[in-house]
């Protein structure tokens, strides 16, 4: 008949490497028997004494982990920080990149917006799951096999502290942004009247679709650009606050999103201009890809900048 002790010893030994088993079994059985005898001598029922002793020893899994010197955690404190940092970096860079890549390819194939968004989201999700799974596995392995560990990590020193962007550098950034915005607006507003192509009457043919002017979308787009410049100034001079950060993020996201929408709806270039310039469908498509890529990068930068600034407060 198997006793509780037998079952307890089996449960412990099962989790131990083979060469340790015989020795530990002998010792553990003796220790349990000694303890039970002690209690019986003190007047306990043998069965009750056995239960009490085994309860005192606790979960066999825990005892076996102690014998095998096995960690009871997945990633210990020595590696946890590196793990968390690497995971954050990977998730923040690879996931958006994968989503953008898939979205771009789908857009090129002319997928409808809903399919595009769904595919991009599912690609992001799959990528995130893969990153988390493999990174965790790798670090858990490192934690268990110290031989694999590449030397001790570089000790932390004050040099590793993040640099505060100097006010001057930020001012230069602001000035550049202003110049670029003004030049861009001027260029867009001048395209209907200044062009390399002219029609039969000698009138210039605008580079951008006249639809933009008819519906006023071009003014909304430029307005978003100028508002973005405004919020950049506000961020420079006013203190950081949640409403301001949200407003500026919204405004800065508006322009690239509008541009992506215009490209996918094929409303950017003037078909008459394309025909007059003799551009093939490839040229217009690549222009579209370029614009979408540019917008995606801007979006990504807005989000990461916003998060970084929020964390610094």
């Amino acid at each position, binding site marked *: 008949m198997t006793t509780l002790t037998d079952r307890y010893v089996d449960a412990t030994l099962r989790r131990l490497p083979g060469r340790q088993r015989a020795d530990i079994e002998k010792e553990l059985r003796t*220790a349990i028997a000694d303890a039970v005898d002690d209690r019986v001598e003190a007047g306990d029922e043998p069965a009750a004494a056995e239960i009490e002793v085994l309860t005192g*020893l606790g979960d066999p899994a825990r005892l076996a982990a102690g014998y095998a010197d096995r960690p009871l955690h997945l990633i210990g404190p020595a590696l946890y920080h590196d793990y968390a940092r690497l995971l954050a970096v990977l998730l923040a860079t690879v996931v958006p990149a994968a989503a953008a890549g898939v979205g771009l390819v789908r857009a090129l194939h002319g997928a409808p917006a809903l399919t595009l968004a769904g595919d991009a989201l599912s690609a992001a999700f799959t990528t995130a799951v893969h990153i988390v799974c493999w990174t965790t596995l790798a670090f858990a392995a490192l934690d268990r096999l110290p031989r694999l560990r590449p030397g001790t990590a570089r000790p932390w020193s004050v040099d590793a502290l993040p640099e505060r962007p100097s006010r001057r550098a930020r001012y230069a950034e602001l000035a550049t942004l202003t110049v670029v915005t003004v030049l861009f607006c001027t260029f867009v507003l001048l395209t209907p009247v200044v062009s390399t192509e002219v029609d039969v009457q000698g009138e210039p043919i605008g580079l951008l679709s006249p639809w933009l002017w008819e519906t006023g979308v071009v003014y909304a787009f430029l307005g978003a650009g100028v508002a973005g410049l405004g919020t950049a100034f506000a961020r420079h001079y006013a203190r950081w606050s949640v409403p301001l950060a949200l407003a500026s993020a919204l405004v800065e996201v508006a322009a690239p999103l509008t541009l992506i929408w215009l490209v996918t709806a094929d409303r950017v270039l003037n078909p008459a201009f394309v025909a007059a310039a003799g551009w093939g469908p490839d040229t217009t498509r690549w222009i579209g890809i370029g614009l979408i890529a540019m917008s995606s990068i801007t979006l990504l930068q807005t989000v990461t900048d916003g998060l970084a600034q929020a964390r610094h407060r």
Partner: protein
Amino acid sequence: MLACLLVLRQENYGYALLDLLEQRGFAVDANTLYPLLRRLEKQGLLTSDWNTDEARPRKFYRTSAEGEQLAETLGRDWDALDAAFRALKGRL
């Protein structure tokens, strides 16, 4: 652990050691002590011998020379810490 090394200058086995430590004011769980003995043995701080004279085979542990040395170092550290605490309490 220090208590273990000190007590085991006199050869002893697992269960008796548990009792002895408790009598001396070191309450320690069986499921902590048994693995600890193995670990110390693996690190060369304890030596062990199976004694099969009695009805039950017992593994007797004894502090090794290396263990003795470590016990001395740890004991000194402990004394220093104790002295520091005393000084701190005395001043308040």
